[in-house]
């Protein structure tokens, strides 16, 4: 397995994986994400993919992770935020997620960031268990919301 930056040619596989996992097709969203995180401000935006290279003639996508450095939002000093992580369901529990987290952690550290954050739905048990197993604990913020009637 290898973790590397995303390329334009990866996007059909990224979109296909996301559609399978979320059951929502959002090609326009992913076009925009690739434009912003795959091509711009590469020193602080990281769109990484994990690929299986056991067959070097046909490497295929195992998963992806996307994050960026955000500064001064909600009063926070610059911090690395992970806002997307997905692993091929059949390939889970084999270290792909951990490899993606480790890779983006290195990228954040390399640009001087010492804290990484993400947000998980309270009832999203598998992501919650995963991020916890990667050593993430609850941060000092609480997400608040209200309906707009």
């Amino acid at each position: 397995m290898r973790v590397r930056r995303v390329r334009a040619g990866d996007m059909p596989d990224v979109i296909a994986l996301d559609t399978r996992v979320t059951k929502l097709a959002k090609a326009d969203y992913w076009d925009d994400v690739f434009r912003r995180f795959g091509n711009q401000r590469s020193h602080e935006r990281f769109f990484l993919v994990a690929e299986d290279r056991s067959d070097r003639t046909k490497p295929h996508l195992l998963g992806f992770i996307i994050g960026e450095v955000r500064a001064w939002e909600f009063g926070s000093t610059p911090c690395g935020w992970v806002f997307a992580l997905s692993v091929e369901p059949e390939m889970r529990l084999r270290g792909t997620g951990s490899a993606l987290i480790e890779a983006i952690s290195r990228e954040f550290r390399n640009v001087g960031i010492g804290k990484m954050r993400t947000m998980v739905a309270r009832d999203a048990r598998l992501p919650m268990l995963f991020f916890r197993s990667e050593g993430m604990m609850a941060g000092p913020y609480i997400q608040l919301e209200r309906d707009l009637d």
Partner: protein
Amino acid sequence: MRLQISTQLAIFALLELAAREGQQVSVAEIGEKYGVSSHHLAKVMHVMGRAGLVRSARGAGGGYQFAGNARRMTLLDVVQRFEDLNAVEQHTGVADATAEGQALRQVLSEIDDIARATLGSITIATMRKLVDRHSAGNGRPGPKSVAPRLPD
């Protein structure tokens, strides 16, 4: 949030057993580490045995073994054997029929939901990693290092 002593002992005992999976660990040994009586701990172990969280070992020496999957068993699985985590939902409040009572239940439910989500997301394996970090002297990530940039 505070946990009863029995609940804490249950978690500590599971951490000990999970760290020595496959081995028999005596109640006396666990009790000595945490400064509690074998009698009290034996009651806790009995509850966990009935819940299938631990298995009593037969033969010379006795003791207990971890009976679950450390990567699947969560703190919630343990805590709910000893604590009432549905206090707000299952107990009638003083003024539930009033708007004030309902507002208070909403706030307390939020606290309960967060507590359950936290406990339900930390496995025994994750707890062991947390213990190891504390044992190493700090709870922070390792020293910063500059790694090679990823290939494009």
